[in-house]
């Protein structure tokens, strides 16, 4: 059997009384890219944001069921959400550089995990920027404000920031939807490379993107997972009617 | 310092700041009540029903009804003058002024908002007050002059608040009106203003609150008579003016001292009332 790192079991999520995710069951395989697709409002972002419990910040959000990370339920009472989020990183829809220098953006996360030695921080900053294919562009201006970078550069900086603290899983919430085609292409290539070291879950409404980079795809509709399989199989041969309609552009 | 100590320290600081704010409000109320207690006990209802304010006579009299009425009258008249003009200026800036023009005039108002009231009072006292004598008015400081001072003092805040609420009305609303062929003035006064009404009402309430609490302008320009003026050119004195001018020469703990705290208590009740109305207006609007 495949090497499962995350398993979602009978999982429901609510905003107040509104059910956003209905009885989700899925397994995420280590070092693979899993894409979550579906029309807007289908619950795909909610599901993703439940995996690192970032949705805890949303008032009136609550869950039922389990999400197992290394076989332990992250919704257990004794879970330390802060260390959970360090092990499961996240990159958002819009680039979210902090209002600090490029260097400090990455150092910020490192300091949170207790890296204090300057030399080590410098090495990690370089390592993560190289991994994020940004090093060559910014190595001479690490002190520049991150806000002055272009949108695509900002997003790669956010990826560098996420990987600098070496999580096991990285969640991407529509990471290219606010970017131009060239930047999108760069980031897709980057995500594929990252899969060698990290497990990746990406929410996207872009069918082409899922086809290009993901190993597995799951398709959601109105809060339910209607289909999940290897990406090639789903795209070539969707079994569910809703998936067929979505892939042919009838809903979305 | 490790992370959790830092976390605790920061949370403590936040709690302390909240506690200071809360205890300031309660502290102010408690102090005013405590210090005015002996006035209530010894002067009693006379405080509010008598117009005779002779605190340093023998026997002294502490009737502040006239000053309460003056405070309210100044507030009413002041608002009646400043609000319409602020509204018209805000309409002009909102709908007609070019961006740079709007920016510049706004800037002038913002600077005026920072001018200390004592400066406004001094300028009017020096350059306007002498004119009264020339036209045969016996009191060079009077209700009218105080109202002029209050006008300059409050027109920036009133105009800015009204302008902000007009500017926050969605463009589509105005476009819909314009598309029906309405001239702009009609659109701005009927449609935009209606949509911005809660903001405008809030501006009026906050302006009124600013006037009722203003001290130096009414003190230096009002003429300082603790009676109800019969015409605009009569001198008058408000609660705030009495506190600021008499307190420094009053013995701590005396009945006069206590009566001035009672005046402060009346003032804070007014201001709390105004703020509560403002909160209610904004909250109702939100829903």
């Amino acid at each position: 059997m495949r090497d499962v790192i995350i398993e979602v079991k009978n999982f429901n999520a609510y905003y107040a009384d509104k059910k956003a995710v209905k009885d989700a069951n899925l397994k995420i395989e280590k070092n693979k890219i899993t894409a979550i697709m579906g029309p807007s409002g289908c619950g795909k972002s909610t599901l993703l944001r439940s995996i690192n419990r970032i949705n805890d910040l949303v008032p009136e959000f609550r869950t039922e069921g389990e999400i197992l990370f290394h076989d332990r339920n992250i919704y257990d009472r004794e879970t330390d959400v802060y260390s959970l989020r360090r092990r499961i990183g996240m990159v958002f829809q819009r680039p979210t550089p902090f209002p600090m220098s490029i260097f400090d953006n990455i150092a910020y996360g490192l300091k949170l995990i207790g890296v204090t030695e300057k030399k080590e921080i410098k090495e990690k900053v370089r390592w993560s920027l190289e991994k994020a294919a940004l090093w060559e562009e910014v190595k001479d201006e690490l002190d520049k404000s991150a806000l002055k970078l272009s949108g695509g550069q900002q997003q790669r900086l956010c990826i560098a920031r996420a990987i600098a603290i070496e999580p096991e899983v990285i969640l991407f919430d529509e990471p290219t939807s606010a970017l131009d085609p060239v930047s999108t292409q760069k980031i897709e290539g980057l995500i594929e490379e990252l899969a060698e070291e990290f497990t990746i879950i990406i929410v996207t409404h872009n069918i082409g993107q899922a086809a290009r980079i993901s190993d597995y795809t799951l398709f959601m509709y109105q809060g339910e997972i209607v289909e999940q399989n290897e990406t090639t199989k789903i795209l070539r041969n969707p079994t569910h009617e809703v998936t067929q309609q979505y892939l042919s552009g009838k809903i979305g | 310092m490790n992370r959790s100590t830092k976390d605790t320290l920061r949370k403590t600081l936040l709690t302390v700041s909240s506690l200071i704010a809360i205890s300031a409000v309660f502290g102010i109320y408690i102090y005013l009540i405590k210090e005015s207690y002996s006035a209530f006990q010894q002067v009693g209802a006379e405080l509010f029903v008598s117009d005779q304010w002779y605190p340093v006579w023998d026997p002294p009299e502490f009737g502040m009804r006239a000053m309460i009425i003056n405070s309210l009258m100044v507030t009413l008249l002041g608002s009646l003058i400043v609000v319409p003009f602020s509204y018209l200026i805000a309409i002009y800036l909102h709908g007609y002024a070019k961006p740079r023009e709007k920016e510049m005039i706004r800037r002038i108002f913002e600077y005026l908002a920072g001018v200390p009231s004592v400066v406004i009072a001094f300028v009017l006292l020096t350059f306007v007050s002498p004119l009264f004598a020339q036209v045969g008015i016996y009191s060079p400081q009077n209700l009218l002059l105080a109202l002029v001072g209050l006008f300059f003092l409050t027109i920036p805040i009133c105009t800015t608040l009204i302008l902000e609420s007009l500017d926050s009305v969605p463009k589509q609303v105005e476009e819909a009106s314009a598309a029906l062929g309405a001239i702009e003035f009609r659109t701005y006064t009927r449609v935009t203003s209606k949509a911005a009404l809660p903001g405008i009402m809030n501006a009026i309430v906050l302006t009124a609150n600013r006037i009722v609490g203003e001290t130096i302008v009414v003190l230096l320009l009002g003429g300082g008579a603790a009676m109800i003026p019969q015409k605009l050119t009569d001198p008058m004195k408000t609660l705030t003016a009495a506190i600021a001018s008499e307190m420094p020469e009053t013995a701590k703990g005396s009945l006069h001292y206590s009566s001035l705290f009672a005046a402060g208590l009346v003032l804070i009740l007014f201001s709390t009332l105004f703020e509560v109305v403002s909160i209610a207006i904004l909250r109702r609007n939100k829903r």
Partner: protein
Amino acid sequence: MNENTNFSQESTKRARKSNPVNKGMRSKVTLRVITYIFAALILSLFLLALVPGIRYWNLDFFTQAPSNGMTSGGIFPALLGSILLTLLSLAIAIPLGILLGIVLSEYNLEYIRFVVTILSGIPSVVYGLFGLGLFCITLGMRTSILAGALTLALMVLPVISSSVYETMHAIPRELREAAYALGARKSEVIFEMLVPSVKRSILTVSFVAAGRAIGETAPLILTAAVFYATNLPTSLLSPVMTLPTHLYFLSASYGESARWMAQGTTSVLILFVIVVYTIAFAFRREKK
């Protein structure tokens, strides 16, 4: 703002089709005249405050104490007192105001918001009464710099915290989430992410608060200021002279003989206001 103008030009065209041009123009011209008259009045107020006093500026005016019953000398003690009081009150109010602004923005506590709104509406003279009762009498500080600074600090606290609240509240949720996603705690998100990103607005409001504090008169009459101090302050518990209270006392109790000093003081005060606000606006503009 641009969109707004485009819109109004557009609507002008539309309106002209069905309405007499005159009618629309007339209201525009009337409103413009009203606006310009008041703008001119305000500007002349500035000129009347600034210009007549400038001619009394000289080295003695800024370095000497008043003498001969306010007929000669300068305003040095008042200048010094105002600067001391303003700096001290800001040193207390800015950190506290930032903390309170954070609470307003990041903790959804209705009663704290209520309390700050009430505080912002309390008349300055009532703050003066409170300062007099609590700081000067009960805590035994008497008429002193410290009592005045504490009173002023309390007064500008709601100004600072409301402004911090507004800018912090406007920071997009995503930015907070990005920090949480790295495993940061709430206090770390607040102090290491949000506070640095509202730095500029904190600077702006600090200068606005300085403008407020330097011009306040009524609370200082009750808590800190004396008409004439024979000595310069030697400690935080000394009474002081300040520019606005000096101007107030001169206007209230002195006639022609001290007019020159009052005008000189007025011009200094208004210059302070212009400088302080210009700096504040400059910070705000850079942000845009």
